């Protein structure tokens, strides 16, 4: 390929087109001058009906530091507050639980799903990526990330190689990431499937102050230019988690008989999950442009050795209004089959080796509908807002958890600096 300064526009297009092939691992700035920082700033407001709410500002900065060589940084602050389901079932009588610290209690009214009101945390996450050409048609992306919250720390690194061939119409991508996480829950690590005290008089059985887990992910993918207006991506990811995978704040109710909601003498047990998990995902994404509008569709099939399988459908349609304005409807549907050890409640005398009543491990669906509006303020700046509603519902027969309704609001401003 002959490239020189005189062919800069073509070269620029080629750079962008090549980066397009690497879409999920590199999103180049369009029209960015080489010495400028490309800034993407966002603020997310997420609120569940009667439960948790979060405010999450994100700043992403990207700079060209050489020929097809980029640095990208991201800073995220995530502030959460509100109530979170503790895993216990609603009963006909009021229920009292100890807070994770063990030095206070909270009471849930009769016929109400128990929520732990002491849920609040602030997370700070930083991420850096160095994207560098290694050879002709071969690019490397090397990343590192650190995330810190009051009771959880995550430290990770990743490397991705992307090889273009078939006249740069096909890109083979392979990636590896490793995360080392430490959980240090308030009140220590509870001994799984032991009793949660219902008064502050007693102390929960603890197996230590903190524990660790490792998360390894491997990616194999192919991105294919289908035509002048169509791009397609196929990925397979394999993941393995080892270590403490239990949620230290979740409990299960224990009833006297399967057909009742009458609590046993020991009414609540801390959950216990297996200490390893093997995850797989197959992912397909297509981007196609019509006259001016662009449709972006993806499908993911996920399965793991906890017995969870899921289907995720995601579609966005960018409708050009003209003059730099656009509307983008978004629809997402998620369908999940439960983990083998998910139990809505346990029966006294029949306690399994592993059990969790965390509804996120149950049979559920998530439906999200949203609309985004964006406008190009200038050649190098854009403003957009989006509003979405999300509903999570239990699936299947029998006793189930109540719906979770959430609202997602987000504002974005992108510019060159």
């Amino acid at each position, binding site marked *: 390929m002959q490239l020189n300064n005189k062919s800069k526009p073509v070269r620029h297009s080629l750079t962008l087109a090549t980066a397009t092939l690497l*879409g999920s691992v590199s999103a180049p700035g369009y029209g960015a001058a080489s010495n400028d920082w490309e800034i993407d700033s966002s603020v997310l407001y997420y609120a569940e009906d009667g439960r948790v709410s979060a405010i999450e500002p994100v700043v992403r900065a990207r700079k060209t530091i050489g020929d097809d060589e980029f640095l990208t940084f991201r800073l995220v602050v995530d502030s959460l507050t509100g109530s979170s389901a503790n895993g216990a079932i609603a009963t006909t009588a009021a229920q009292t639980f100890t807070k994770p610290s063990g030095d206070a209690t909270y009471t849930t009214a009769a016929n109400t799903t128990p929520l732990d009101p002491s849920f609040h945390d602030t997370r700070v996450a930083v991420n850096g990526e160095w994207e560098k050409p290694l050879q002709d048609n071969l690019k490397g992306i090397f990343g590192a990330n650190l995330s810190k919250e009051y009771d*959880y720390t995550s430290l990770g690194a*990743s490397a991705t190689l992307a090889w273009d061939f078939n006249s*740069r119409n096909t890109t083979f991508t392979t990636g590896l990431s490793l995360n080392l996480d430490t959980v240090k829950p308030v009140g220590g690590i509870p001994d799984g499937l032991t009793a949660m005290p219902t008064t502050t008089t007693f102390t929960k059985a603890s197996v230590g102050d903190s524990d660790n887990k490792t998360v390894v992910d491997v990616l194999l993918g192919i991105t294919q230019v289908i035509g002048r207006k169509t791009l397609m991506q196929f990925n397979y990811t394999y993941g393995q988690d080892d270590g403490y995978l239990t949620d230290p704040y979740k409990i299960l109710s224990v009833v006297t008989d399967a057909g009742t909601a009458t609590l046993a003498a020991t009414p609540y047990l801390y959950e216990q999950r297996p200490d390893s998990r093997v995850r797989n995902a197959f992912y397909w994404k297509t*981007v196609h442009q019509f006259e001016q509008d662009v449709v972006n569709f993806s499908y993911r099939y996920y399965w793991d050795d906890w017995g969870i399988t899921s289907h995720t459908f995601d579609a966005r349609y960018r409708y050009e209004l003209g003059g730099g304005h656009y509307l983008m409807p978004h629809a997402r549907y998620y369908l999940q089959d439960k983990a083998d050890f998910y139990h809505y409640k346990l029966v006294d005398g029949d306690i399994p080796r592993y059990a969790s009543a965390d509804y996120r491990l149950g049979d559920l669906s998530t439906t999200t509908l949203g609309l985004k509006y964006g406008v190009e303020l200038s050649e190098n700046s854009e403003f957009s807002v989006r509003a979405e509603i999300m509903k999570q519902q239990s699936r299947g027969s029998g006793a189930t958890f109540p719906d979770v309704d959430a609202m997602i609001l987000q504002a974005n401003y992108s510019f060159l600096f």
Partner: protein
Amino acid sequence: MTKLALSALCCCLLLAGCNLQGVRPWERNVLAQKKMQLDPYPNDSYLDDHIYYSKESSSGGAGVGGGGCGCN
């Protein structure tokens, strides 16, 4: 599922094979547009990933890296 993944991979390779001529560099004006990238709105993707990682039990697919969270 292995069969499904292999089938999809074969389909992709077939598509690649059918596209030996490919799209030429000078025909890439559409593909070069930001809105035609696989991840044209990276902050939206990041925030969505975080929301659904926190509320569902599936992860992975689009890429690797990015970090974890407690997400109780």
